[in-house]
């Protein structure tokens, strides 16, 4: 029995370690939008320690995030338990983080996809939501390069037409 309990604690420990090291930003917020979890990804990119963010309002930590806008997104997650999404095409980023490759990367900041999902508590109610932050910089810069190439090509075509 005690062996089992020990196993469970050990398992919990490496699960937490996984949350810390996964290359996706994980933030847990309560209904007041106070930060409850701030994983390693968020810590590394923002420079804010979990102790700096714990129980602080997301909006006080990041005044650039529009409160009304974010609350509207989160309302459906809290009330309907559906997921809410923000894509980088819609908003390049929610948190202004530097590009993960500051030297060879072409973009100055990290493009992000954001997903919000409901966390159901043991009592069945939704008191917290989980925000996942994905680094989409490579996809975004590839798409931008492709678009730039297309524009360049069509420009070249139109100039050769003129020269003829």
């Amino acid at each position, binding site marked *: 029995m005690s062996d089992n309990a020990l196993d469970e604690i050990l398992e919990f420990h490496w699960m937490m370690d996984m949350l810390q090291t996964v290359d996706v930003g994980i933030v847990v917020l309560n209904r007041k939008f106070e930060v409850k979890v701030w994983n390693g990804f968020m810590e590394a990119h923002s420079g804010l320690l979990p102790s700096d963010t714990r129980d602080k309002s997301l909006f006080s930590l990041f005044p650039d995030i529009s409160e009304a806008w974010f609350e*509207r997104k989160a309302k*459906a997650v809290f*009330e309907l*338990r*559906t*997921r809410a*999404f923000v*894509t980088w095409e*819609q908003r390049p980023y929610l948190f202004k983080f530097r590009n993960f490759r500051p030297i060879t990367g072409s973009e100055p900041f990290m493009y992000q*996809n954001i997903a919000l999902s409901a966390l159901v508590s043991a009592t069945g109610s939704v008191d917290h939501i989980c925000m996942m932050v994905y680094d989409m910089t490579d996809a975004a810069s590839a798409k931008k390069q492709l678009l730039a190439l297309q524009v360049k090509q069509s420009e070249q075509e139109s100039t050769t037409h003129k020269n003829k």
Partner: protein
Amino acid sequence: MISVLICDDSLVARKQVAKCLPQDWEVNVHFAKHGEEAIEALCEGKGQVLLLDLNMPVMDGYETLKAIQAQQLLTKTIVVSGDIQPEAKARVLALGAVDFIQKPVNSEELTAVLRKHNVLALAEDMPHEPEGLDENLRDCYQEVTNVAMGQAGDHLARIMNVFVKLPIPNVNLIEVSELHMMLSDIEQHEQTSGVCQGFLGDGISGEALCVLSDSSFGDVAKIMNIHENVDDEMQLEILMDVASILIGTCLSGLAKQLDMQFRQGHPMVLGQHQSVEELIKANKSHWRKTLAIELSYGLEGYNVQCDLLLLFTEDSLDMLNSKLAHLLED
């Protein structure tokens, strides 16, 4: 002997309701596929009790209730519907229904309601034999979607404070070319915008497509309490929000009935940077047929038209069918 009339456009739903009637209740059970058939049957005296669905073609439940009132037909109507918005309940009660039961029906609840309204008082001790069930998968999908949509509508109604007009879902196996036509239609009409989102779980995978007509944006913004100017960026925002609510609630409604969970991918705006034609062409060799469930939502009092398309891959069908098998059992 008491006669009970079950009116529902879905065969599965009719059978399911019949199955849930109290076992020891000796009654004549009659069926109607829509309101008109029901009124006809009531005029012939078939149906001292009417178990009535709301979403039906030809004549829906609300109109049927109005016709019963107008013609002063003697029947006790109990509405059995997947539309579980509080407003729907209030409306049918105002139209003379004695009670309201949420789909899918279970026998305890139906018995309790029948007892409450003294309908069971005339029960005799003879076993009731429900009729055999012929399998009709399409109907089954339609009914499951109906229930899921009712839940989705209820969620929408609660968060937006509006009455959602629930459509009859359209279920079809469609070919690549048909989907192609459908999508290029979206692309050609500049008045519409679309979002697609992949979902999968338990060996079932597919894609949801949400299309909003551009004229809807103003009203949707009003409903969602958005006071900012509705520019292109805002439209995209609204589209994303509406799509995630509709897709999310509908999928979770379906998943609940299938006793599973769907994972959703990140949504993509359709044809924003790539033409729809190219998107489909690239995938043409991967699949031939898809199961498509088409839903079109409207909001009462607003100029909002929104189409939701759930597309299931061909190889998901076996799994889907086996998960639905319990609904087709006797």
